[in-house]
């Protein structure tokens, strides 16, 4: 592979030489390699679970210019894994919190701040001044956007994604290698694949995968070793197994193939959402709903209402409003526990699973089933603020 970075113009101060001495004495890095790191410009898309370890290690390693893209604000549920952000940062912009930590670790790094949501309009401008892009985002629309923009602008995309105990990592969009669309030509419809917010994620997992990304970024800069191109590493933290699969460049890939059909950026929200949105509105449109205030008033008035909780037992254990627990997946086999003549208010965490449950119950002859809008989170916000949220 031709050298990606030319470090010949970079120079290191005595302070920097001391700081990077453990690199400089390694034959795979040396002074030349450290100068390449200093000359390199790496864009981290996202400063969350993956972006935290990625940016921390790139800054510590002496990558000269680090770009950060994030528009989000630190919240309490981030702190279990997003190690760039501290308890005292809750409520601050992640990008400001990140810049503080990265500058404290290595004041020699120049940081470029992009406090914005990456989209088709701004992505090419943002990518322009970087050599490598590393994708640590959390949704399909941005992942396809980053991939296509990397292919179109000729920049490698050092990729990872995570779910619960499992992660995937690879390098996409190099000249000879495959891109993300070679692996996955199309995104799943919304709702079919749960996000970390819905499915949970082991706190250390983004640490493992983000550090793999940082390793691959540094190798690309140095031109050392075997880059993770054309290979997908699967990490199973529960079994502590690492597997490797071949990813081939698809000659018919719509973006990086011989005859591409995608030659400019598209509307990625539409690309990732249109089918799912249609089916989603089709089912939720006819589902009767109740506001938490209305349920509270009617329960206080001793009306005969049966509250059904369709979350999982471990969620019930965190917080509950004494509803009858039948997880959504068990509803078909445990439906006999319910009385179709009674009014049933169904709730889950935020309202999506309970909407499916109401839809199922109504189609099974339960004419008096309604969905609690906003789930137990809305109840904790608006009715009983002593309840914990998760």
């Amino acid at each position, binding site marked *: 592979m031709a050298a990606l970075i030319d470090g010949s113009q970079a120079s290191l101060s005595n302070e920097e030489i001391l700081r990077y001495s453990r690199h400089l004495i390694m034959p795979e890095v040396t002074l030349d390699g450290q100068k390449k790191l200093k000359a390199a410009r790496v864009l981290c898309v996202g400063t969350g679970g993956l972006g935290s370890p990625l940016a921390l290690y790139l800054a510590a390693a002496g990558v000269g210019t680090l770009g950060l893209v994030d528009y989000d604000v630190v919240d309490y549920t981030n702190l279990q894994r997003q190690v760039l952000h501290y308890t005292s940062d809750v409520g601050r912009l992640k990008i400001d919190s990140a810049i503080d930590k990265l500058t404290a670790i290595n004041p020699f790094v120049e940081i470029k701040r992009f406090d914005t949501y990456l989209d088709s309009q701004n992505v090419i401008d943002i990518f322009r001044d970087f050599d490598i892009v590393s994708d640590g985002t959390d949704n399909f629309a941005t992942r396809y956007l980053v991939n296509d923009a990397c292919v179109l602008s000729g920049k490698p995309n050092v990729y990872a*994604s995570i*779910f*619960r105990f499992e992660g995937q990592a690879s390098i996409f969009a190099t000249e000879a290698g495959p891109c993300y669309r070679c692996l*996955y030509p199309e995104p*799943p419809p919304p709702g079919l694949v749960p996000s970390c917010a819905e499915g949970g994620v082991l706190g250390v997992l*983004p640490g493992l995968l983000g550090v793999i990304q940082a390793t691959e970024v540094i190798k690309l800069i140095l031109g050392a070793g075997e880059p993770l191109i054309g290979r997908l590493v699967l990490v199973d933290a529960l079994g502590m197994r690492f597997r490797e699969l071949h*990813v081939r460049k698809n000659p018919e890939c719509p973006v990086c193939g011989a005859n591409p059909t995608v030659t400019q950026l598209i509307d990625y929200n539409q690309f990732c959402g249109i089918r799912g949105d249609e089916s989603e509105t089709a089912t939720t449109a006819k589902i009767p709903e109740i506001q938490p205030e209305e349920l509270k008033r009617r329960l206080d008035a001793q009306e005969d209402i049966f509250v059904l909780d369709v979350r999982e037992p471990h969620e019930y254990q965190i917080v509950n409003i004494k509803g009858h627990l039948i997880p959504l997946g068990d509803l078909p086999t445990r439906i006999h526990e319910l009385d179709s003549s009674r009014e049933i208010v169904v709730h889950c965490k935020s309202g999506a699973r309970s909407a499916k449950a109401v839809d199922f119950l109504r189609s099974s002859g339960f004419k008096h089933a309604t969905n609690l809008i906003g789930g137990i989170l809305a109840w904790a916000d608006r009715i009983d603020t002593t309840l914990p949220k998760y």
Partner: protein
Amino acid sequence: MSIKLLIPTPLRPYAGKQSVIEVNAQTVGDALNILVMKHPDLRKHLFSEDGKLRSFVNVYLNDEDIRYLSKDATPVKETDTITIVPSVAGGR
């Protein structure tokens, strides 16, 4: 013959919470059909309505994508492992 199918975390709720399922099959297509017959809830996650493998799910025989082998007709042998690799987007 009996071969192993590895079920990824996001699909385990539809496969009786199992991470490995053994089936008797001659081809990858057979194995997947037996899998969705045993676990019907998996069907919509693996196949579109016209019965094609969904484009956000990849099936590997050992470390090769079946799209670059003989797809469904790829023969399997006793020591083989089929891995289902769905796209996941999580990162925050």
